[in-house]
């Protein structure tokens, strides 16, 4: 059994031809459909399930010559990072890039010393991507340098006639663009800095110092409701997950448990055997809000609108936001639901707002945490350009002495 991959492409030279991604090795997780490949999404509910057809992003990768090298291990439906090897294939140079579904910040939290990019909601097709929280999740991209992320976005982004959930918007440009630090303002959110450990605070301070040293104007702002992001994410995400997982009923696919005397028992037994503790907790919580506390769900939706508006207002004043990242997720082990949310408390804001985020590796490769740079929704190209600029400066030794 491979330590990183749950499935390795048996056709090694597949996709090694020309195209924008010719020769680029891309790892996926088994929640992205590749025809004939396992697609169990880390869940017993889909044990032995094989994808019937390629996801849209797979078709686009193939069309541009990428080599899909295999599927890495993932947590159940990508919820949390328990059992996940996300990021390891790129770190070990077994792949050049990896696609990791970002529903709470998974792609950013597993990135370690890699660049991680969560695109704007609705920019990359989700057809053929198994998720749990349709309004929050986006395929994220991990790579060693943002230039490859830009190339991947050029291929992956854009409308998909099969994905009706993508807003009807003009295509984004991912062409290389210049960055002028003197004309670029980066905002800090005061409330996002609360509760950082010493090492995390140090890591973030180093990143901010790097930005200032590069000549960016960095200014602190207040978003008083910032602490409410977790609440909105928790209630809405749980309700969406509860609905989304309703299809795993063992009627059309999945494992049917024997001995049920009626349909209700069939559901209870099949779903009881299918889901792990974390997903069960999530689904219970979602069903509770659906059936018992619907008003709380409605309140969470209102709260979400308020939070989106607050971030939009802030991004009218600045070009980008710098938000700290609380630590790494490696070897975290199984966590209960509340602790899982705590783990992702610094990343989930972007899943609530749908805005793009670029996670930079720590300035000091041994350092903790680091920084996430966020932009207005659909300013993905500008954000990637900022990442490339910072990497270029690092390459020139621009962050020395920080």
């Amino acid at each position, binding site marked *: 059994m491979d330590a990183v991959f749950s499935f390795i492409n048996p056709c090694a030279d597949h996709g090694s031809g020309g195209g924008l991604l010719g020769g680029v090795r891309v790892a996926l997780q088994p929640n992205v459909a590749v025809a004939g490949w396992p697609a169990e999404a880390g869940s017993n509910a889909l044990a032995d399930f094989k994808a019937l057809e390629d996801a849209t992003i797979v078709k686009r990768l193939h069309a541009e010559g990428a080599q899909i090298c295999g599927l890495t291990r993932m947590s159940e439906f990508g919820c949390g990072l328990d059992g996940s090897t996300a990021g390891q294939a790129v770190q070990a140079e077994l792949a050049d890039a990896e696609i990791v579904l970002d529903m709470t910040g998974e792609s950013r939290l597993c990135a370690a010393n890699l660049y991680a990019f969560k695109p704007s909601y609705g920019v990359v097709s*989700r057809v053929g991507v198994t998720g749990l929280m349709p309004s929050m999740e986006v395929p994220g991209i991990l790579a060693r340098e943002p230039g490859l992320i830009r190339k991947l976005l050029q291929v992956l982004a854009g409308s998909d006639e099969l*994905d009706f959930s993508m807003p009807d918007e003009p295509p984004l440009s991912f062409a290389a663009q210049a960055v002028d630090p003197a004309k670029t303002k980066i905002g800090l959110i005061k409330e996002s800095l609360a509760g950082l450990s010493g090492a995390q605070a140090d890591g973030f301070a180093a990143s901010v110092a790097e930005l200032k040293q590069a000549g960016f104007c960095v200014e602190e702002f207040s978003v008083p409701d910032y602490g409410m992001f977790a609440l909105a994410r928790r209630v809405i995400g749980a309700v969406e997950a509860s609905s989304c997982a309703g299809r795993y009923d063992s009627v059309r696919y999945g494992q049917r448990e024997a001995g049920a005397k009626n349909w209700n028992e069939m559901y209870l037994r099949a779903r009881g055997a299918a889901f792990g503790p974390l997903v069960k907790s999530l689904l219970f919580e979602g069903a509770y809000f659906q059936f018992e506390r619907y008003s709380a769900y409605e309140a969470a939706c209102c709260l979400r609108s308020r939070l989106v508006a607050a971030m939009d207002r802030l991004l009218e004043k600045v070009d980008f936001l710098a938000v700290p990242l609380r630590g790494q997720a490696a070897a975290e082990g199984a966590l209960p639901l509340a602790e899982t949310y705590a783990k992702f408390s610094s990343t989930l804001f972007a899943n609530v707002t749908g805005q793009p985020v670029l996670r930079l590796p720590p300035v000091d490769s041994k350092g903790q945490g680091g920084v996430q740079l966020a932009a207005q929704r659909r300013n993905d190209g500008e954000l990637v350009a900022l990442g490339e600029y910072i990497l270029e400066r690092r390459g020139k030794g621009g962050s020395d002495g920080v």
Partner: protein
Amino acid sequence: MEFEAVIGLEIHVELNCATKLFCDCPNQPGDEPNLNTCPVCLWFPGAVPRLSRQALEKAALLCLGLGGELQKESAFDQKVYYYPDLPKGYQLTQARLPLSRGGGIEISDEQGVKRMLRIHHIHMEEDVAKLVHEMEGRTPISLVDFNRAGAPLVEIVTEPDFRTPQEAMDFLKALRNIVRCVGSSECSMENGTMRADANISVRAKGSDRLNTKVEVKNMNSVRHVGDAIAYEIARQVAAVKAGEAVVLHTRLWDPDKKATLPMRAKFEGPCVPDPVVPAIRLSDEWIEELRARLPEMPAAKASRLLAEHDLSARDAAFLSEDADLAAYFEALIAEGVAPKMAMHWLTTQLLPALKERQQDVSESSVKPARLAGLLNMLARDEINANAAREVLTALFDNDKTAEETVNALGFRQISDTGLLEGMLDEVLRTHPAAVADVRAGQGKAMGFLIGQVMQASQGKANPKLIKEMLTRRLAEQGKS
């Protein structure tokens, strides 16, 4: 105490779209089980629904036809419940923001008194799969056919304006005509493309109170709807008179027992906004373009036919129920056929002949021009009615004009009085008893004598002319 019923209807109409509501599978529920399925309507992992534009158009046309106000923004919700006929644990339906609000249908009672029965709203939703319960040896098994899962439906929810079973039946018939007229559905209760549930409560006559209602399902025809409502009203009135409480629940109509039977406590699952299917936003231009496509509605057509032609209100209403039939009628009129004759021949001859041949009016091999040719010959007394009926039969089997067919069959009527006088002489000579009977005032004998002349002419004599000649001859003989 005198009671009155308060009745509201919830009517599901299956749209006659080429595809299902959220995928490209053929919308043909009757095909071989599970033939019309795909990862979307089976809700495989990674499936993303895509709203059918045709379904939206057909639903919107239906709303406009029923006088509804299309909403600028409507959206789908997830109606959450678990059942094997529902492949994802929720049904996509427009629970909070329906496609249309308002509208209604005006019906008339037997005295011609008009009453508007209002529609509360109309929303779109997807159909569920079909469950088939069978035995495998001694083990009961349930099979699921997903051909119907995701079929496009609209649900028409009325106000509780109905007071009698007849009103409900009249409303359903009028609704069916309107929906067929706009072309959104076949709208047949018998084949399941229209399904009506009734919510029924009773109260003291004159009260404005809304008491606990009972939902009645499983009516497979308009007649069943009337019978089920009548039964349920009587059952509830008897219960109230006996001091029993009416409990909110669902009952099934059993057409064999002619009774409603309790089914289950009414379950209402939560409705959560769907995060995937985008909200539907309609522009004024789109709505007006659609409105321009609306055909003449049955009520307007009936009024116009009544005003333009010499028809009874009943005939005008009958024609307006079927756009093809009305078009056929108007084509006959355009060819110079008198309205009453056209109506008479359509209802007594053409429609039975089409039914016998399993043809629709629109596909009739006897086009209006050919039938008009025949009826105009009949009006000019060039053929008689009996011959005309035979010619119509022949027109179904050939492609000639009516005139060519009449000539080929030798059915042209004999109106040559010289020729007819000879036949008349012979009949009067050989049937003196009948002549005496006519003189004695026995009307039947006149018919006998006419029949004898018709027989002598091999059916070609003009019966009106014979009658005139006979009457004149007998009167003359009486004088002499």
